[in-house]
């Protein structure tokens, strides 16, 4: 198992390299100028050129790329162009917020989505099935910023249960959990929609298999057939979908963090893009790519836990 994990992590290196290389060159190709951000609209071409030179942005791009890679293999993401702070520190400050938000969103989505998907499959074509499917369709259709505003209006402004600004002190666990609920619900709704749909279709397919018919013929109770023979076999595609859409969730966390005014990688990436802080943007992409690789690895390992046949392979 350990060998497998190491192999997978080593395989991640070329993926990370490809991502950071792409990001490195693409962000520099896009029009925009960090020097303009620092000096403002009234800066002359002369002073912008001087600052670009001071920041090292006028050096050949391949030299900048080489330096970036050298720092990267040393575990140093460099300094922010705009704020001159260490990117490792900037990211470390907000990473816990994004991680806990994403995990809470996934957890909520799975806890609510999986039973609903099962329910929907078992009561196929019933009123409740249609209701669940319509609900999940709505969850998929709502952009995260819009559903976020609706949640804020309902639960913060009208009911007053949660604050609008979800910016907790990391040392205060109670406050953290309280302020996590709404943003996690916002992300969880999206995940829930994916899980409901995939669980329903996968379970329906499994329930139509011969071995299920055999189990029924043997006179096994419906509960056992559903959970032991049906759901367990239907879970693999659901896990794949969860793993796949955690990436989507990380993307949606950008919008969620902005709407709920919550610190995190999402807000960071937005300002880095806006300010053309190339170094910070590269650093963030490395972290995002690494997180996605990690999620895929965990997904693969989970297959083995659910299905012993995969473990043996």
């Amino acid at each position, binding site marked *: 198992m350990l060998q497998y994990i190491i192999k997978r992590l080593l395989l991640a290196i070329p993926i990370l390299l490809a991502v950071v290389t792409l990001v490195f060159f693409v962000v520099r190709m896009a029009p*925009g*100028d960090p020097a303009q951000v620092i*000096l403002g609209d*009234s800066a002359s*071409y002369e002073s912008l050129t001087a600052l670009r030179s001071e920041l090292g942005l006028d050096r050949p791009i391949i030299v900048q790329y080489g330096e970036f890679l050298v720092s990267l293999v040393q575990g140093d993401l460099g300094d922010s162009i705009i704020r001159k702070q260490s990117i490792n520190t900037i990211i470390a400050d907000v990473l816990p917020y994004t991680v806990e938000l994403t995990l809470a969103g996934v957890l909520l989505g799975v806890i609510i989505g999986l039973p609903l998907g099962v329910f929907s499959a078992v009561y196929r074509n019933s009123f409740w099935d249609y209701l669940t499917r319509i609900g999940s369709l709505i969850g998929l259709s709502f952009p995260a910023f819009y559903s976020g505003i609706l949640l804020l209006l309902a639960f913060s*402004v009208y009911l007053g249960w949660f604050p609008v600004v979800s*910016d907790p002190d990391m040392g205060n666990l109670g406050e953290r959990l309280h302020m996590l609920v709404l943003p996690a619900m916002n992300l969880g709704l999206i995940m829930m929609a994916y899980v409901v749909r995939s669980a329903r279709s996968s379970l329906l397919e499994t329930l139509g298999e011969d071995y299920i018919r055999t189990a029924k013929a043997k006179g096994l109770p419906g509960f056992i057939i559903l959970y032991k023979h049906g759901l367990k076999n239907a879970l693999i595609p659901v896990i794949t979908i969860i793993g796949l859409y955690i990436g989507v969730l990380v993307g949606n966390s950008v919008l969620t963090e*902005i*709407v709920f005014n919550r610190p995190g990688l999402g807000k960071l990436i937005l300002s880095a893009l806006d300010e053309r802080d190339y170094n910070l943007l590269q650093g963030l992409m490395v972290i995002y790519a690494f997180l996605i690789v990690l999620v895929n690895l965990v997904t693969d390992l989970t297959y083995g836990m659910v299905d012993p046949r995969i473990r043996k392979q």
Partner: protein
Amino acid sequence: MITRKSVLGCLVSLLVVAFLVTPGFAENVLRIGTLGSDAISLDPHMSTKTQDKIIFPLIFNGLVRFKPGTADLNSIEPDLAESWEVSEDKLVWTFKLRHGVQFHGGYGELTADDVVFSLNKAAEKTTSSAYKEYSAVKSVEAVDPYTVKITLSEKVPFFLGAVINYHGGFILSKKAWEKLGDQAAMTPVGTGPFAFVKYHSKRFIELKANDSYFRGKPAIDKITYRYMPDEATRALAFDKDEVDLFYGRREARWVKIQGKKKNTIVDVFGLGELRNLHLNTSIKPLDDIRVRQAIAHAVDREGLVTFIGPEVSSAADAVVPAGYLGHSDSAMVYKHDIAKAKELLAQAGFAKGLTLKAIITKVESLRLPMIVIQEQLRLAGITLDLQVVEHSAFHKLIRQNQSSLVLYGASRFPVADVYLSQFFLSSSIVGTPTGITNFSHVKVADPLFEQYQVWCRKSNLDYGYKLENSLSNGPLITEKTSFK
């Protein structure tokens, strides 16, 4: 050589804020929701971002200051300087400092050394984005601990602007700057009514009342200045009483809705941005004055004001914003006249109309008026092919001379020469080494700058220039030149 200019709005609303009048002030804490997702820099000489500029006057002072609540250069007040004198030739300025002014954080009493340090820093290219404003400063000397002498190499139209509580004019603690080193830019130490306590990246800044402030302890004990990039969230947080004051939206409908809320005041105030439509004379057929005049006649400024809302905008009457020293409200502007526009186009050889390519940002405050202009021009037979790009790309591309029309909103230090020099002086033409924001490639301000003909038409601020034509001629310079 010319441009046709001013289209829209002398807009009164640089900042639209709403604030809760009563209960939010329990415990004397003021919670502000500001725009932007983070501070760029807390060094007042460096940052030009709105979210940073709002907070600087709370922490720092200048030698002189705007009268609170105004941007009126006719009523400048002493700030850290008790008084000042100027020599006959207007080249030597001597400021007497207040005694006993303390810097925050135990950094000691303000002395002339701090002023010398601060102004030298403001004049240095590597430590200040305002350095150009100090190009005429020959020396800054500490005569004694409470006297500062500034010598200029040439007469400056409005020198007090360089030592006022704005941008390079803020006075920093020399001792703190040197001690804090790399941290100094994000750890501001001033003499203002509020002292910096802490900064949480992407989250908030906390300030506390300066108990030993030389004008007396502020009535507010603490300020939380929170970065809230999403305007809708700022409004919701205000509704939920989580912020007391927030940066609003420059939109009439928004102002009306917010104004109806209980215990709420929406304050729309100037000086605002002036949005000029710069016509790029280096791109054909805009080198033809008749085409530019046609555009000027085709644009309906009142129509734009109706679209944006009279609550937050008004039609501009000059290329220099209203309220700036040197602005005139008696300048000639082209009247909206579609028939005349078509006639001029026909004379220029475009009887069947013409197509122009322009770049515009996706930021709504510029994109939407540009779409209205696009429709107005269409009525005159001018097709505006608009390319909508991301905001920083817009700034880059228009400086690369890639747009025939540039709709640009700007507010600057409120004296006309700053505006004129950045937008209408030949040395500011984009694409040149000294280029700034002269998008129209005009030289109309050159004669004024060469002859020092500008700026101080108010008698109490006239530092000796004999102005045959003051800046009340602002827009006329454009017109006169254009007919040559």
